[in-house]
């Protein structure tokens, strides 16, 4: 296998994922409208909730809208990752992934290329949302929009890998709703996306602990700090480690020789 083969495969996967994104206008619109609704309606009701304590990376009092934006960026990446893994289930059953996974290239490479392509497809949407959020007076420093890029990439990869891992457990499309309820919703709510850690621990200490061990929390915090030109090493390390673990497990799970696929046949598990 030469580098040319790798390149061709990666380019093919990337082209396909980008094409798919731009062809699905409804999905595009939904991906943008969802966080805007949260910002415009949900956050409006909580305007005065914060502003009682200053927490890093903020250097002064912030409105709830300002606080919630990095969490909503995390939500966009999370939903995009989950929808991509949903389409992964579909592709595996009857689409291109079926053909692709038998290509004579290492499985980790094929899955990784798809993961990267999906993440890169989601990032422009995040930027559109961040610029729209300026209308709600969420105005991070301009260099923050540059600094946030690597954070978005890493967070997107981590969540994508998580989705990939989940999709390996799901035999049929129908089962994905369960995954949404039992993985995505708790992951989003039991994190610092909507409330800072000090408020979660006010509400209930165990919830704060869940949030501390929730990889989504670290992805959101990494994004939040990057947006304000700060590097949060703990969040970066936790997100990177989670990404590696999820991706490693996903590659294993997709290996027909060893992973979950071998145990599927004939009936498989659902």
């Amino acid at each position: 296998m030469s580098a040319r083969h790798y390149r061709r495969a990666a380019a093919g996967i990337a082209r396909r994922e980008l094409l798919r994104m731009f062809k699905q206008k409804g999905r595009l619109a939904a991906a943008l409208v969802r966080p805007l609704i949260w910002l415009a309606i949900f956050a409006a009701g909580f305007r005065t909730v914060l502003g009682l304590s200053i927490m890093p990376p903020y250097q002064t009092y912030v409105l709830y809208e300002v606080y919630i934006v990095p969490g909503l960026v995390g939500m966009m990446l999370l939903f995009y990752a989950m929808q991509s893994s949903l389409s992964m289930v579909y592709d595996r059953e009857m689409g291109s992934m079926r053909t692709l996974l038998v290509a004579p290239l290492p499985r980790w490479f094929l899955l990784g290329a798809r993961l990267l392509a999906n993440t890169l497809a989601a990032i422009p949407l995040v930027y559109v949302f961040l610029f729209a959020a300026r209308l709600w007076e969420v105005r991070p420093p301009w260099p923050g929009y540059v600094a946030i890029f690597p954070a978005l990439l890493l967070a997107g990869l981590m969540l994508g890998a998580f989705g990939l891992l989940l999709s390996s457990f799901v035999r049929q499309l129908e089962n994905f709703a369960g995954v949404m309820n039992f993985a995505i919703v708790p992951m989003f709510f039991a994190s610092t996306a909507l409330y800072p850690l000090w408020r979660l621990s006010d509400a209930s200490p165990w919830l704060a602990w869940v949030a501390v061990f929730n990889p989504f929390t670290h992805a959101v915090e990494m994004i939040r700090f990057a947006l304000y030109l700060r590097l949060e090493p703990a969040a970066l390390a936790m997100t990177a480690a989670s990404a590696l673990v999820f991706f490693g497990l996903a590659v294993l799970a997709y290996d027909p020789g060893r992973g979950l696929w071998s145990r599927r046949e004939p009936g498989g598990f659902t």
Partner: protein
Amino acid sequence: MQAVTPLVFALALLAAPAAAETVYVSNEQDNTISAIDGETLSVTATIPVGRRPRGIALSPDKRRLFVAVGDDNRIDVVDLASRKVVDALPSGEDPELFVVHPDGKRLFVANENDSLVSVLEIESKKVIGEIQVGVEPEGMAVSPDGQLVVCTSETTSMAHFVDASTYEVVDNVLVDTRPRAAAFTPDGKQVWVSSELRGTVSVIGVQSRAIDAIVEFAIPGVPRELVQAVGIAHGHDGRAYVALGPANRVAEVDNKSLKILRYYLVGQRVWHIALSADEKRLYAANGGSGDVTVIDLERREPVKSIAVGRSPWGVVTAP
């Protein structure tokens, strides 16, 4: 991410505006003055003064700071080079706010408990005049030409116009309830008086001695009763700033149209405010949260809140 860090630092340095000024804040419950460096935006000194420091002002040569220490019934004089109290002036009982007259020789001090304004000669350290005003005088302002001093009395709800040479009350204007602070516009044609309980600012014509307009504040999501107007600062660019107490906001007002341009989120119970010399920044003393919020007026956003002592009250900027 790691690779971005040096770039981020470089950009952050570019973004940080430099201002070679010092901000002084009186901490009412700590009996101290905090000095904040305008460049690093951190507290560089804490100067012990008398009990219950509230109103503060710079001497005309900007080398000394006058601090009204209400519970000690005097005005402490802080030398800004050595950062020590070097002198004290008699002020009459319970001084709260005062103004330095443009002639640089006299202070006009509101004595809250005695319904008096005392005229204090700095050189001789003597009270050379007393003016009977309404109950609980607090807000003090002097016209740019030095002819008029305005004192507001909290309980009487009046702005008293005092002739600065004869020490006589020449006019009284009824304003909204509990007037806290007064400030002349830079052209000297108007006096703005804030009302704590009504949450308004009365704009009084200096010639007519009548209320030209009343500025009202309504902040989305903030209950009406929390909007309590206190400190006022006038810029020379036609914009004015009003601290809104427990609403935790500072309003930016167009001087001519009296339209509210925007609200800045600051700390709890913002009391007095001060512009930097270049008028690119506004410093707000937040009594409830014990910090000073720095507002970047060019970027139009609060950039930092700096913890100082307990109950920060008055604030001034010095070169």
